[in-house]
């Protein structure tokens, strides 16, 4: 075992890369849950995004087209969820599960022709001057575009929720849909838009996996990343910056266990691969043990169907 082979700067830089898919999915889900909808189909939307992005990128040769296709594909899938839960008043938990089961099957079906292919390379942006700073430049300023997009999204979601009227309306719908409806806000329309945003973000996260992080397509490749994103939203108690913290903590654990595997620690690989999931459980327990604090931030109408009867 050789722990000195682990370079901290490289570790942190790869942490950001491994956290990005989950960060993207989680920030989208945060917006969805803020609007009062619990979409458990993140995993299904991510894997759909992964294959849509992969297929589009391979066919066109452009990673950008891939990411756009991933966002569109996954947000179309989230539209199914939106119609079922918002218009047909289906149970949100069951519909979310259906979305995941369908997404896994559907993506495997489309992806059959793409197994073993290599996607076009997404170049790393070397930000001039900044990327030449020793250590810091290596950590922060030599990533691909999507890493910066994900960070910008977190900042944007935070600012919109906190400072804009749109954010205020979104939160109002999530806290008390009846009051928001009485004030004349289109509850269902707002929720559908939030769901589509969440879908697009999850799709981007999935495409990040298949186009940059892995990069190739295998069936079921998200391996629970969508569920971890859901857990991170709970961990973050619905606050954008804490989503960033949660995703990077999680990314850190993933990268560390991968590095430990490579360094040949005397623990079977399978036990190391379990660690991210076990730590997610641990974090959930710690967050929920403090009941009053965790539930204080949850949107009050989360998971409830809205039906205007008048």
């Amino acid at each position, binding site marked *: 075992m050789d722990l000195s082979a682990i370079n901290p700067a490289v570790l942190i830089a790869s942490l950001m890369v491994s956290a990005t898919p989950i960060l993207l999915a989680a920030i989208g889900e945060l917006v969805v849950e803020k609007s009062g909808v619990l979409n458990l189909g993140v995993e299904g939307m991510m894997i759909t995004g992964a294959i849509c992005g992969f297929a589009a990128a391979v066919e066109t040769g452009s990673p950008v087209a891939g990411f756009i296709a991933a966002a569109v594909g996954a947000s179309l899938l989230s539209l199914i969820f939106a119609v*079922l839960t918002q218009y*047909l008043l289906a149970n949100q938990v069951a519909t979310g599960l259906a979305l995941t089961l369908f997404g896994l099957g*559907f993506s495997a079906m489309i992806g059959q022709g793409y197994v073993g292919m290599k996607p076009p390379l997404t170049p790393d942006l070397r930000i001039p001057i900044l990327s030449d700073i020793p250590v810091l430049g290596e950590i922060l300023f030599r990533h691909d575009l999507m890493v910066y997009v994900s960070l910008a999204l977190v900042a944007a979601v935070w600012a919109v929720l906190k400072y804009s009227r749109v954010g205020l309306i979104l939160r109002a719908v999530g806290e008390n849909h009846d009051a928001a409806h009485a004030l004349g806000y289109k509850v269902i329309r707002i929720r559908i838009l939030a769901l589509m945003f969440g879908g697009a973000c999850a799709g981007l996260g999935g495409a990040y996996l298949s186009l940059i992080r892995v990069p190739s397509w295998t069936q079921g490749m998200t391996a*629970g990343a969508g569920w971890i994103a859901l*857990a991170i939203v709970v961990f973050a108690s619905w606050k954008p910056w804490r989503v960033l913290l949660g995703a990077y903590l999680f990314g850190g654990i993933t990268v560390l266990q991968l590095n430990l595997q490579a360094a040949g620690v005397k623990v079977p690989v399978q036990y190391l691969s379990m660690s991210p999931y*076990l730590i*997610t459980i641990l974090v959930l*327990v710690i967050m929920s043990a403090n009941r009053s604090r965790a539930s204080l931030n949850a949107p009050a109408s989360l998971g409830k169907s809205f039906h205007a009867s008048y």
Partner: protein
Amino acid sequence: MFMLEKRPSPSRFWTGATPILAVALTMIAGGILFALLGKNPLEAIRTIFFDPLFGDNAWYYRAQLLVKAGPLVLIAIGLSLGFRAGIWNIGAEGQYILGAICGAAVGLAFYPAQHWYIFPLMILAGALGGWAWAMIPAVLKTKFGTNEILVSLMLVYVAQNLLAEMAIGPLRNPQGSGFPGSRDLSQYPSAANLELIPGTGIHWGVIAAFVAVIAAYVLLQRHILGFQIRLAGQAPRAARFAGVKPDRLVLICMGLSGALAGLAGMFEVAGPAGKISIDFASGYGFTAIIVAFLGRLHPVGILLAGLLMALTYVGGDIAQSNLGLPSAAIQAFQGMLLFFLLAVDLLSNYRIRFGLKEAR
């Protein structure tokens, strides 16, 4: 446009009719899907739903039907109890894996001794393994209020890694020339879960599934616990006034569903699968969720739904070899079924009124 009007109580007619309507709609949508894949939709639907029952070699496929339906029904019965009470155990796949690991481990520990009590001990170990795995989210839920959906799901991935470790580590066949995978339990008479009546596909797991259906029916209709489960799901507040302890219900429902999933895994590993291997987990735990909903969380409904879902598996295999239909298409097809089911569920809870849309 149309408007929805809530029914005072769910319509009895539509409660029974919606699953059939959902299956019909899924066949249409599935046909479109298969057509897009370049297959003849009518032929594909016929191959999936008709050939396993009445086509050539139907004697073989009918047996396969019971082999596939057994674990699905067993798991779905357990899940349905929790779902009725609003307790979402969606980690049945993990409990299924743990049941298989524990059951197989007990069997392999006795190898090559021959005793009558080995198989019963394996059954016990399988049920306990699944139960213990389900107790993790249950206890965390009751002690700390942790979300059982996320925890039980995370534990599926943990279980899958554990399965891989078992297949290449402790349970590996010492005479398997280093290949991953355990000894073949079906070749070990004291531990084998064999066909009880040759050619029918009926093994102990199928018997257990039937027993579970009857037991669940009696529990829900005639027992105070069944009443409490139904009450907790329909009116949580009223349930608390009636003296239902939510924590106790969580422990019981999760424990029961875990034990049944564990049993299903144990019967599978000792019978049709034969051994612990890396690709042992085949997604029964997730498909069982669809089975539970398709059966309207009712024991008899689940039995029928399990058989139907088994039909899509068996028919899907035939379609895969005869028509070249990708196996993932069946998975997507099953997911679609759940979508349609949830969509048409509206009809049992709401009346649809056509007319001009009022200003909202």
